[in-house]
């Protein structure tokens, strides 16, 4: 049985300066209530690991607009002009990672692997400063695993064992992020009374520490 807490409790749990993974792909499948509490609790100096910074008025985008993020590790910021403005003005550091590399680095972090060997980025600026390894005549980039202090993920349905079902496109980055952080908090759209079907679980409860419901 996992601890069930409020969004406010979750917000209070995160110290300033933490590295936080937040699930979601644009506005889809993001833990909005917890993000709102992170704003309310005045948490700042975050390193944000996410696919994108959404739009200014929406979930992860609010953390940008409210200047809570000192560094963002993302695949793109194109949908949030405010991230672009802060980036151009040197108010935020942005590390761009190809989307497939980003999600695989997070998976590697959660799976105990030392990194990934990917052909993506070879021959581009992404290669700069990184080790390349030739395997059977083909060059690969060694990209390091990503881990975080906290992962804040979304769940369409969650049971008391922490098992999570994610509907449709809400799966996105939530699945791998739940494996790659010291403390993992899932925001349940619905906390189910009984347990979820053992064959229809997107994130096994072993990865979950707290349920916000």
């Amino acid at each position: 049985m996992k601890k069930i807490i409020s969004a406010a409790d979750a917000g209070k749990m995160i110290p300033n300066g933490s590295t936080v993974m937040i699930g979601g792909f644009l506005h889809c499948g993001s833990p909005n209530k917890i993000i709102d509490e992170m704003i309310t609790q005045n948490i700042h100096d975050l390193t944000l690991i996410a696919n994108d910074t959404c739009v200014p008025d929406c979930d992860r985008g609010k953390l940008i607009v409210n200047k809570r993020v000192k560094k963002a590790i993302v695949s793109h910021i194109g949908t949030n002009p405010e991230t672009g403005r802060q980036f151009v003005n040197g108010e935020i550091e942005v590390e761009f990672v190809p989307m497939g590399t980003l999600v695989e680095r997070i998976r590697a972090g959660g799976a105990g692997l030392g990194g990934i060997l990917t052909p993506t980025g070879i021959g581009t600026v992404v290669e700069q400063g990184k080790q390349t390894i030739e395997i059977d005549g083909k060059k690969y980039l060694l990209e390091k695993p990503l881990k975080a202090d906290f992962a804040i993920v979304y769940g369409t349905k969650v049971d008391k064992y922490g098992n999570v079902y994610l509907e449709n496109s809400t799966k996105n980055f939530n699945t791998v992020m739940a494996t790659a952080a010291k403390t993992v908090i899932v925001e349940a759209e619905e906390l189910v009374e009984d347990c979820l079907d053992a064959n229809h679980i997107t994130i096994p409860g072993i990865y979950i520490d707290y349920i916000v419901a």
Partner: protein
Amino acid sequence: MELSKEQIREIIARRVAKELHEGDYVTLGIGLPTETANYIPKEMHVMIQSENGLIGVGAKAKGDNICRTSINAGGIPVTTKKGAVFFDTATSFSMIRGGHVDVTVLGALQVDQEGNIANWMVPGAFVPGMGGAMDLVVGAKKVIVAMEHMAKDQIKILKKCTLPLTAAHEVDLIVTERCILRVTDEGLVLEEINPLFSLEDITSTIEADLIIPDSMQNIAA
């Protein structure tokens, strides 16, 4: 010959659609490439993959149909076709990087005769990030660049890209409103021309060395 933006986009999207085959799995970039889907014959079974984690993308969702948890990589709510599958983004890029997607269609700022593509970054300008483009170009079995022939007066089909690359040596076909170019080991082959343009209209607006075969098809064919 002056074509409207709409005419240009339609010529390109229509022609790209002809490159797709029964049973293909296809990933389309945001913008012009997405319009390709409008010209796939109804009787042809092509599955569109969206990099966020969906195979079987249908039309944009409208009215009562809108499900906010069913989106494409552009964040647009979409319907799904029969046989659709939702999965996470890790699975999606394993699929893409692993060579399971038959065709990807992407826009470009520049392409060159070595099959290099630059489509994500202009130094000094605002950089939105590469998103999934680098993985798509590296991973898809066939990479089609669908783009307007020129950017205002700037030449985009070069001997060597000057902008930072998205990937090296990965482009297979370039489709513009004026011509079709195939990237081969020998160089860039001019395969089709739009009869609305003269050969001169085309060669004078491409910096790359061109291999021009004796016979050439019309782009509309």
